[in-house]
């Protein structure tokens, strides 16, 4: 090979090697950025995916709540929040001479649609320099439509789902409310997991506007809608009860009140009202309201949480215990001079020390004589035969209703610090605390032939087509059917004599109660009445309690008129024929 050719070949080889080296360097650099930095270091692959691939959470629609007639009690609506972008506005108008003009036009346009927000406030918001500022929300659909149509710059609407209660404060303390995604109080809280459903997710490549692309790789986990609940509540009865209670509290100048209406056969809660109450659509405005004589917030259901001393309504339980054990009959008589003394307990007197002479057990209920009740509990029953019945009637324990509740309390002969004075006082409803629902369920057992049912609020659950119906549940036989019939007769007789809660055409079995609290003046009472009707074939148990009425302090005069009005409305509403033509 000659020199020239060799040199030519050497040059070729040099260039070839140079090119190879450059290619190798490029490949090495490519490997560095594509492989090494992609997964580690700058996380380039991750950052690229973050730009184009988004993982969006799909919120699950919250389940709806209906009443027993299919009336909607709680639903969801979507409302927009209005945001402005002050920083973006500044960027868009950096060198613009018409910044102020554009700003004023924008502010004016917003103010036209959202008159509640002053232009001064809008100007201040636009000058804040923040990335985004929420200026209004939720706005109504008409305003949303107007803003959509205007297509204002540097302004956007963010949809949000809201829980709405079309009935306003109807059954508010039964339902509770929703804060964020969490149910608070009532059914919303107890059944929050069922109602909330399960959120889903969508992972997909997105376009410039953030919309997921159907052409790219994507994966989706669908959201599972929350279950719908059907309650045992009848909206019309609930409304009637709430309205009547509110009027009664005002008329009787009481601090509050509670009404419970139970289906006597099944234990289903037909209505449950408390005063004061709140509007779950605007729960924040009731944060200072207190119920249960100021003990708890108005959000709590007083029928389930307000423990009180039941007073004379407890005498029916005392009589039931003695009747069931065959220790007395309705006609068993004793002498009532207006007081009774015990060797081991404090003396018990009747209201205003009234004496009734020789009176029967039925008379004890008619006159609501404390002496008679204490006599039966102390002298006839004794603690060992009395307290088992108090327990069987459900006192001192939760009723088992499908929501949160208090249990009440009382001391027995097995409790520390108990004395026989407790026994004598518990016989007429003092020295024992119970919730209104517990008292109502005690009368439910009496009305239902001695059979106590579990109270319940939810009648059915529809979980995306899978329907579960809640059936009435028998809890226990509290007293025999015979005892139930005897006691019912005594209560009817007492009601007929007093004429405080009777309604034309129907037999009613009721007992009034006027409970005082130790340490507090005797004119500050818990006036109550509990009973059921029609007595011959009980359909409903009604309990009414007014807290410290001032117009009149007695159960028979303060609570009975309300009881009567509710009872009569119930008979009409359900078309129950009179049993006393």
């Amino acid at each position, binding site marked *: 090979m000659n020199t020239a050719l060799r040199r030519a070949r050497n040059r070729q080889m040099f260039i070839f090697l140079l090119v190879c080296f450059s290619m190798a360097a490029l490949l090495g650099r490519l490997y560095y950025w594509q492989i090494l930095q992609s997964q580690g270091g700058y996380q380039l692959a991750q950052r690229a995916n973050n730009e184009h691939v988004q993982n969006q959470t799909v919120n699950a629609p919250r389940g709806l709540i209906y009443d027993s007639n299919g*009336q*909607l009690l709680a*639903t*969801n*609506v*979507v409302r927009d929040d209005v945001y402005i972008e002050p920083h973006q506005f500044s960027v868009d108008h950096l060198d613009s001479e018409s910044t102020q003009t554009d700003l004023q036009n924008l502010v004016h346009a917003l103010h036209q649609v959202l008159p509640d927000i002053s232009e001064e406030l809008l100007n201040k918001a636009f000058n804040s320099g923040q990335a985004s500022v929420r200026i209004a929300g939720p706005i109504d*659909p008409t305003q949303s439509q107007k803003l959509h149509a205007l297509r204002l710059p540097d302004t956007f609407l963010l*949809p949000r789902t809201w829980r*709405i209660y*079309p*009935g*306003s404060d*109807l059954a508010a303390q039964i339902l509770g409310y929703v804060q964020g995604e969490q149910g608070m109080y009532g059914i919303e809280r107890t059944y929050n997991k069922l109602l909330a459903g399960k959120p889903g997710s969508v992972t997909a490549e997105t*376009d410039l506007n953030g*919309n997921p*692309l*159907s*052409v790219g790789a994507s994966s989706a986990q669908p959201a599972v809608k929350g279950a719908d609940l059907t309650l045992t509540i009848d*909206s*019309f009865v*609930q*409304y*009637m009860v709430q*309205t009547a209670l509110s009027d009664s509290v005002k008329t009787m100048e009481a601090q509050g009140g509670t009404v419970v209406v139970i289906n006597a056969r099944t234990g289903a809660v037909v209505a449950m009202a408390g005063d004061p109450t709140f509007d779950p659509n605007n729960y924040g405005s009731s944060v200072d309201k207190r119920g249960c004589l100021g003990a708890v917030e108005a959000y709590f259901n007083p029928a389930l949480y307000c423990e009180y001393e039941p007073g004379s309504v407890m005498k029916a339980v005392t009589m039931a215990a003695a009747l069931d054990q065959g220790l007395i009959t309705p006609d068993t008589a004793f002498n009532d001079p207006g007081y009774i003394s015990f060797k081991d307990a404090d003396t018990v007197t009747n209201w205003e020390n009234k004496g009734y002479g020789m009176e029967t057990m039925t008379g004890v209920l008619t006159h609501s004589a404390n002496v008679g009740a204490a006599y039966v509990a102390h002298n006839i029953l004794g603690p060992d035969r009395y307290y088992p019945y108090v327990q069987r009637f459900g006192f001192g324990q939760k009723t088992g209703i499908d929501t949160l509740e208090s249990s009440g309390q009382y001391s027995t002969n097995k409790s520390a610090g108990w004395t026989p004075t407790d026994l004598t006082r518990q016989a007429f409803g003092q020295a024992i605390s119970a919730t209104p629902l517990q008292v109502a369920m005690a009368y439910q057992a009496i009305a239902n032939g001695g059979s106590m049912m579990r109270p319940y609020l939810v009648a059915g659950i529809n979980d995306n087509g899978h329907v579960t119906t809640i059936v009435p549940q028998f809890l226990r036989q509290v007293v025999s059917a015979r005892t139930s019939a005897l006691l019912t007769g005594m209560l009817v007789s007492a009601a007929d004599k007093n004429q405080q809660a009777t*309604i*034309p*055409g129907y037999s009613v079995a009721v007992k009034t109660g006027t409970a005082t609290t130790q340490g507090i003046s005797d004119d500050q009472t818990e006036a109550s009445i509990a009973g059921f009707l029609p007595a011959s074939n009980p359909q409903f148990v009604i309990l009414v309690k007014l807290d410290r009425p001032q117009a009149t302090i007695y159960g028979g005069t303060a609570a009975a008129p309300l009881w*009567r*009005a509710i009872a*009569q*409305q119930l008979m*009409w509403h359900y078309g129950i024929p*009179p049993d006393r*033509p």
Partner: protein
Amino acid sequence: MQSMSRDRGPSHGDHLRRQAAPGGLIAPTLKERRSATQAPPMKPILAAKRRRHLHPFFFQMGPVALCVTSVLLIGLMAVLYLSQVGQAVSANQQLQDVRTQQATLQRQDQDLLDTIAQERSPASIAQQAKDMGLVPSDPKNVQVLVVQHLQPIKKSDQSIEP
């Protein structure tokens, strides 16, 4: 031709090569190489057979024609691909529009359900009744009429309804 080349004797280059590799293999001369590269002409039958084979035309194309054709083909495929992608994106946009419309209709449906529920609520009905001048009935004004031996008509028994 071969005898003439023999008569000429070895060329100058041949002399150099022979001298450069004493004792080694003697490299072929340039003339010998040229003659060796000339393939003998094909026999007619074999040539005809070859012509009947389906050789792809571009094997016989020159480099320029091949480049131009390749560019055209690649361009055509690119246009086809972009067209498909464009259609998919357009379809995606339509899908988004439909989804937006669906969301809007769902919102309207929920709003209507809420409106209906509010109108059917007892408070609303009571207010409407009050606005119409109706008043709640007074229980004291209600009289119960007793009809002896009255048999209520069952809802299912329509034939004897008045």
